[in-house]
């Protein structure tokens, strides 16, 4: 059998394989060059970029929890202009999709970042971070209020011709409502999910472990929740989906593909094995070979729930 076809097309975004590295776990890409050729994965999403540099939250910023971790980095980033000037040029040499994660505190700030990235050569798509739980302004409000989400998505849609991904927050009562709002605002693709808000307590000191009290929970602990939300979103909207949540190996990614995602993002696992995303790509190839399936896209959304149509 010829090697399986991993290429996927998500609306206007074509990827040579469906494995991306998630925002906030992959720096600006260059940090991973000692570990693998960035061309081995379908693409990566940058650290969230804001109009101006952000210092982030004071430490301690992270703590491990059962099968996961909480973080409150607070979107420390170099700002969109420094990204375009200092980080982006070197990335053009790699055969991988560079997806810029966009963050703002207001509609105008989101639009500003989108417009600046729209002019930059080498950006393949934008992902709106409307779901960061760790900053006090913007972020979460956009992620949980469907009207605000639709409005900011529409504003960004007008500011760029690049494929527009909206990254949904799981911290909602019904993910289908925000999925529809992002679709109505003009998103091309939805990615889900961002981190779940959680907290950990140091019982000896009787204080929160993290300085900001709460943080975003990621890692294998959230995977069943994320797969369920991907499945729900699949029923609610026709847009292509990118599944995110606790993917460590190919079998984890396959859960999302079967539930209806056309691509996945590997996040926290990048911290454990720098080449975690490459391991997922290889594992997908061997799964397809083992099952005699010629193309990964043939699997998308094929979950058999046993319920007669």
């Amino acid at each position, binding site marked *: 059998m010829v090697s399986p076809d991993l290429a996927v097309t998500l609306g206007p975004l074509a990827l040579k394989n469906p494995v991306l590295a998630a925002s906030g776990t992959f720096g600006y890409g260059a940090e991973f060059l*000692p*570990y693998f050729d960035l061309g081995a994965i379908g693409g990566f999403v940058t650290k969230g970029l804001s109009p101006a540099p952000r210092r*982030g939250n004071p*430490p301690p*910023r992270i703590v491990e929890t059962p*099968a996961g971790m909480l*973080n409150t980095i607070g979107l420390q980033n170099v700002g969109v202009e420094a990204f375009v000037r200092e980080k982006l040029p070197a990335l053009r040499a790699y055969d991988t999709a560079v997806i810029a994660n966009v963050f703002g505190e207001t509609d105008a700030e989101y639009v500003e970042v989108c417009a600046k990235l729209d002019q930059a050569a080498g950006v393949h798509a934008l992902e709106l971070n409307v779901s960061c739980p760790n900053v006090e302004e913007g972020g979460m409000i956009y992620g949980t209020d469907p009207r605000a989400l639709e409005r900011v998505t529409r504003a960004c849609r007008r500011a760029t011709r690049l494929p527009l991904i909206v990254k949904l927050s799981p911290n909602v009562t019904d993910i289908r409502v925000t999925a529809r709002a992002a679709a109505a605002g003009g998103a091309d693709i939805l990615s889900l999910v961002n981190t779940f808000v959680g907290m950990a307590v140091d019982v000896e000191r009787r204080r929160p472990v993290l300085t900001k009290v709460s943080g975003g929970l990621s890692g294998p602990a959230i995977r069943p929740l994320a797969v369920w939300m991907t499945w729900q979103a699949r029923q609610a909207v026709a847009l292509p989906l990118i599944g995110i949540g606790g993917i460590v190996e190919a079998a984890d990614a396959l859960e999302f593909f079967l539930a209806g995602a056309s691509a996945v993002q590997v996040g926290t696992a*990048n*911290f454990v094995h*720098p080449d975690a995303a490459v391991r997922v790509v290889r594992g997908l190839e061997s799964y397809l070979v083992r099952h005699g399936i010629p193309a990964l896209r043939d699997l998308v959304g094929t979950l058999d729930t046993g319920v007669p149509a």
Partner: protein
Amino acid sequence: MAAATCITKDLRVPVLRNVELDRANFLLEFSAPSMIASMRPAQFFMIGIPGGETLLRRPYSVCGLPGTFEDGADGAAQVLYKVVGRGTALLAALKGGTALDVLGPLGNGFVAPASREVRPVLVAGGIGAAPFPALLAALGPAGPPRMFYGARGAADLPLSAWFERRTELTLTTEDGSAGRRGRVSEPLEEFLSASDPRSLHVYACGPEPMLRAVARLASRFAVRTDLALEAHMACGFGVCLGCVVPTRRAGSEFGYDRVCVEGPVMPAETLAW
């Protein structure tokens, strides 16, 4: 200790030995010749247990490199650790032959004094002694360095007999169970006040309150001082941004530096504690 270009590797390697030194302090030895060939003192590894209960790896400073310990295996490195939580408890249960996931070398490491006229002064707090065997081996056979080594009690001073043979050593314990009663910064202060600061290079590693005290002395006596910092980190190679400390170094990103990349060794005057 020439500056070396270190290629970081992610290897699965066998545990050779995992020896309990005293109460809760262990020396773990593993084979990784290609990883450690050009490793420097105070660089570190991220170590994970394959299939283990913990998700993230933990950072461990290199304690011994080939030649540091007389009984060390060829091509092996040692890390010194204290059982303080779940990750270290799982590590302590490992037997020889078990596989470890080791990423390294990471971080910048200590550099030797600028000249042979400069005497190294080592300041360790408890398990913060970890990077000093490798540093002593790298410093070579010049006159014995001065060392100040403190902890809560006598059981928290791993390798103190080893240091006794290789340094002019002052031990302190807060409970008085070994050495002088009190904190390690007290004899250090007396020593610095009686010395020419230009003839000294202080290397310190230990808990943050100790490092803050050493940094204050460094400033007061104007003595060159490098601190090896410890922090919680998820990745160890610069992307999680979990391990930042406030600094006032020119060029640091908005007043934070990453312990894993810009450190773990930082000049005392750059810390904005």
